[in-house]
């Protein structure tokens, strides 16, 4: 049997608050295999953001185990987690999160600085990815000079620059109008088609429909996990 990209066993996460211990996630079990396109859904406060943070190695679980490509995250140090975020995982955020003072090409190339690539190579890789998302002509523009949809494309190019096999997208279309949102989703479709595993958080049904599998959270638990019915035309 194929080892899943992500395997989560009895994962729990609780926060200390002034009102006592608050459990954000309770015994979550989930496996995602390579090439899947998973939508994580649920209302605010259902624990899906906490779950994404743990998937993205930004946070560590309180209980349970998380295996990424077969290795347990709990045993890794901070630098190793940073390395995973740099090489293995690509992040796409709702608010795009581009650095305002850098040109678009520099934003895309930023993750490459942290793996020590030379200037020339960084530049070439950034251009390559920018043409993939259709923004090659904007390489030297500043982020505030382009539209929201274009900014999200830049963010996706940045997420892809280190050739990760896994993309985590947290409400990537949340700040975009529905038409632009659909354009971004077709980009994700395309990436998934190339074999990249995609996990995205959303609460819009239209968006979730692009995914092949939909996982629903409520009160820190998975309440449903089903394949998407082919409703798309």
């Amino acid at each position, binding site marked *: 049997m194929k080892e899943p990209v992500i395997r989560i066993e009895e994962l729990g996460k609780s926060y200390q608050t002034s009102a006592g211990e608050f459990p954000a996630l309770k015994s979550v079990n989930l496996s995602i295999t390579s090439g899947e396109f998973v939508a994580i859904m649920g209302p605010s406060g259902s624990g899906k953001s906490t779950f994404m*943070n743990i998937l993205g190695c*930004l946070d560590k679980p309180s209980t349970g185990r998380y295996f990424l490509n077969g290795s347990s995250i709990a045993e890794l140090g901070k*630098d190793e987690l940073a390395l995973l975020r740099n090489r293995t995982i690509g992040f796409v955020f709702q608010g795009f*999160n581009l650095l305002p003072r850098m040109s678009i090409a520099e934003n895309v190339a930023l*993750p490459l600085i942290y793996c020590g690539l030379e200037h020339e190579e960084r530049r070439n890789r950034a251009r390559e990815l920018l043409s993939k998302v259709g923004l090659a002509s904007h390489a030297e523009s500043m982020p505030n000079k382009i539209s929201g949809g274009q900014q999200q494309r830049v963010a996706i190019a940045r997420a892809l620059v280190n050739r990760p096999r896994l993309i985590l997208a947290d409400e990537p279309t949340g700040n975009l109008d529905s038409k632009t949102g659909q354009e971004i989703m077709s980009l994700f479709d395309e990436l998934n088609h190339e074999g990249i595993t995609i996990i995205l958080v959303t609460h819009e049904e239209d968006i979730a429909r692009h995914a092949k599998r939909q996982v629903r959270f409520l009160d820190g638990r998975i309440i449903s996990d089903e394949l998407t019915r082919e409703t798309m035309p």
Partner: protein
Amino acid sequence: MMLAMLGEAWRAMGTNRLRTFLTMLGMVIGVGAVVLMMAIGQGAQYAIKQSISSMGSNLFILLAGHTSSGGVRSGSGGAHTLTVDDAEAIAELPGIQAAAPVHPGSAQVIYGPNNWNTAIIGTTPAYLDARSWTVTSGSAFTDSDVRSATRIALIGKTAAENLFGDEDPVGKTIRIRQSPFVILGTLSVKGQSMDGRDQDDTLIIPLTTAQRQVFGTDFPGSVRMIMAQATTQEIMPSVEKDMTALLRQRHRLREGMDNDFFLRNLTAVANSAAESTRIMSMLLGAIASVSLLVGGIGIMNIMLVSVTERTREIGIRMAIGARERDILMQFLLEAIIISVVGCLIGLLLGISGALLVEMFTGTSVIISFGSVAVAFGVAATVGIFFGFYPARKAAQLDPIEALRYQ
């Protein structure tokens, strides 16, 4: 990687130029002040050392006491209590290198069409030894010249220039108060004395000649001043006691009577002057370093603000794979660049300030490699020290919190 980070730090500083400039200004002023103060302080020390060595080393000066008649006191040297014999007796004391009676004065000196009023020192050959003064051309006079009151003179550089211009004075005849004197030799250059007098504007003639033929005296054999040189600086205090005892005995002063002479340890005076200058320059340096410290705190302050402002950026960088040490290095580099660039500007300002001071006031300044190195080293250390805390704060941010920060 380092290069990319340097570029980023440079860019981050460029986005808020005024703020970067103001932060740097603290460093600029601090380093500038340290360099300037040290340059002036070391210059002053040097000047004092020069005048000490020009005076001669391990030197005592004995002045005759004062007279008091009808309530009018003459001032020291007015009484005729010191004698040539006293000087000879002092010269015999153990620990005394040389002792010379001195009759100082001044007179109009004429050579051809030129005339010049200059200091005239009547003394014995021992004087040159005591003052560590040498004859550069011609020769010095001898004890036999003193015994026979020959009309010969040694001439200092300034006096020579004023009387002879470019001519070689040795062998020429000058007139001091109508008497002809032959210039026997020229004296080495001494420079300024501690009170700013030009020591080279002088003539040295035999004591007897000065007393009998130039100034005249009612008390031949008495002098206003004796210069004595000890063999080493360490024995000066004990030699001072011996000298006092000797003179009290020779002058037949009973217990309880005041000394009829004044004895000064010139080297001690000079050394304490040098010491106080040294302390002064250290004090100035210390005060200036406080401004360096303040500059450093300014850097820390701005870096803290910058970390807070850029919390979200830090979160993004962490999410895409920056390690703690990458973030730490990024902010540390910014702080170091600010302090080092500030330091370089401060060095430029400090050095040009010192040169301006020298140009306009004539005070000698010394910009030593050491003081520049110290200022630079301190600035870099300040940058690292005060940059480290904000940088570590940035590096230890929680990526999730940082990403959420608005």
